[in-house]
């Protein structure tokens, strides 16, 4: 039971930090958003040139380093990989395309609800529907196969790259891009964002906080553990927003959002389905990456590529609404998810469960 109290406390702190980050400069209802912030980093590195969303977000750096240090300290750091890496890249890409159709990762979806943005309620309906479809395939034996142990060195590469990002953020060489206006220009001070990230990364590592896991485990196992964290974020961020006068109930004129219900639904359905196949939401992928899971690193690289393409090919929505290219990409995304889901059903899973695999001890 203390485990559950832990994740509720962690969720409450994440919700609170998200509200504070907005108060100190982050875009509204975007105290924390893994998809948006990875997108901003892709822009900051010049992988896309949408000048309103370019910044090397310290929150992402903090989350990775916080999770890395915690995992390392708790002896849970271990380099692993080899579980369908290319498929994970593709899934990461698709999850990002869906998130940028909706304008937010599952974490920001919760924060948008906490700000009174009713479009996010449609998003969560889509998200749950997508998770439901993914669960059907999980129950039929969907698997991206096993991971294997790797040399420890490989696990250190991702945290090292993230430290490189921190250097770029502070040194600001001429080849990085920081938005002069738009959401990319709205950010809290580096030290504050970095510290918030460190705390969130550490807490998320300990509790395994995951938005997609919350709904998945509730449906699959009637397990309330992960979703308690999700609900705690919602509740504290909502209270925080009300106190700060930032709670604004409605569909219209919500910050960094659009009101096209159908595509908000489809965008999050795509993200939800893709995330279930991956085994975790974008936040969870970052945490696993920091713990030495190379498959999750590949997923994060897929998300980064997805974000860059989403802006270069005009797939990402804006406050004006979705784009025709984005709608096409989401439909293609569903088709690809169906193929990946179907062709990775493991026939042997059924046999194994019948008890054919026995240890001759």
């Amino acid at each position: 039971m203390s485990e559950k109290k832990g994740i509720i406390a962690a969720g409450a702190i994440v919700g609170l930090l998200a509200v504070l980050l907005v108060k100190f400069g982050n875009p509204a209802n975007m105290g924390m958003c893994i998809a948006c912030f990875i997108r901003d980093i892709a822009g900051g590195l010049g992988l896309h040139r949408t000048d309103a969303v370019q910044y090397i977000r310290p929150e992402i750096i903090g989350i990775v380093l916080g999770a890395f240090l915690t995992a390392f300290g708790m002896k849970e750091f271990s380099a692993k990989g080899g579980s369908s890496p290319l498929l994970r890249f593709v899934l990461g890409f698709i999850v990002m395309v869906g998130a940028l159709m909706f304008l937010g990762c599952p974490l920001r979806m919760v924060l948008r609800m906490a700000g009174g943005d009713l479009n996010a309620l449609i998003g969560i309906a889509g998200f749950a529907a997508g998770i439901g479809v993914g669960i059907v395939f999980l129950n039929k034996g969907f698997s991206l196969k096993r991971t294997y142990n790797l040399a420890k060195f490989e696990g250190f590469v991702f945290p090292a790259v993230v430290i490189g990002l921190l250097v770029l953020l502070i040194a600001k060489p001429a080849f990085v891009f920081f938005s002069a206006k738009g959401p990319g220009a709205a950010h809290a001070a580096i030290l504050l964002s970095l510290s918030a990230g460190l705390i969130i990364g550490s807490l998320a590592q300990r509790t395994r906080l995951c938005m997609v896991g919350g709904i998945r485990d509730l449906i699959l196992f009637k397990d309330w553990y992960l979703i308690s964290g999700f609900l705690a974020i919602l509740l504290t961020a909502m209270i925080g927003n009300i106190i700060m006068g930032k709670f604004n109930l409605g569909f219209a004129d919500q910050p960094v959002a659009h009101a096209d219900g159908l595509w908000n639904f489809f965008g999050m359905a795509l993200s939800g389905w893709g995330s279930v196949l991956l085994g975790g939401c974008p936040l969870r992928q970052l945490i696993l990456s920091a713990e030495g899971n190379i498959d999750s690193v590949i997923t994060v690289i897929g998300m980064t590529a997805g974000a860059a393409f989403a802006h270069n090919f005009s797939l990402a929505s804006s406050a004006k609404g979705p784009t025709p290219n984005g709608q096409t990409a989401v439909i293609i995304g569903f088709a690809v998810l169906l193929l990946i889901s179907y062709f990775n059903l493991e026939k042997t899973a059924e046999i194994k469960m019948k008890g054919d695999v026995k240890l001759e001890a």
Partner: protein
Amino acid sequence: MSSLKLKEIDARGLSCPQPVLLVKKGIEKNPEGIQVLVDNTTARNNIVRFADNSGCKVEVNTQGSDFLLTLQK
């Protein structure tokens, strides 16, 4: 050891929620009990929580860097 006859599931290297899913299906088919081998604390905790939630008895043994869990209805 009576546990020698129990069905064994190797869930090492599988990502969430597959280990728990295999355990759930395994215990439904083998109510006399199953053994499951996992290689990370997340999967171990998830299976222990599943056992608690579904009223199974669970016993955890560490085997090197892996965990062997024995579940019984």
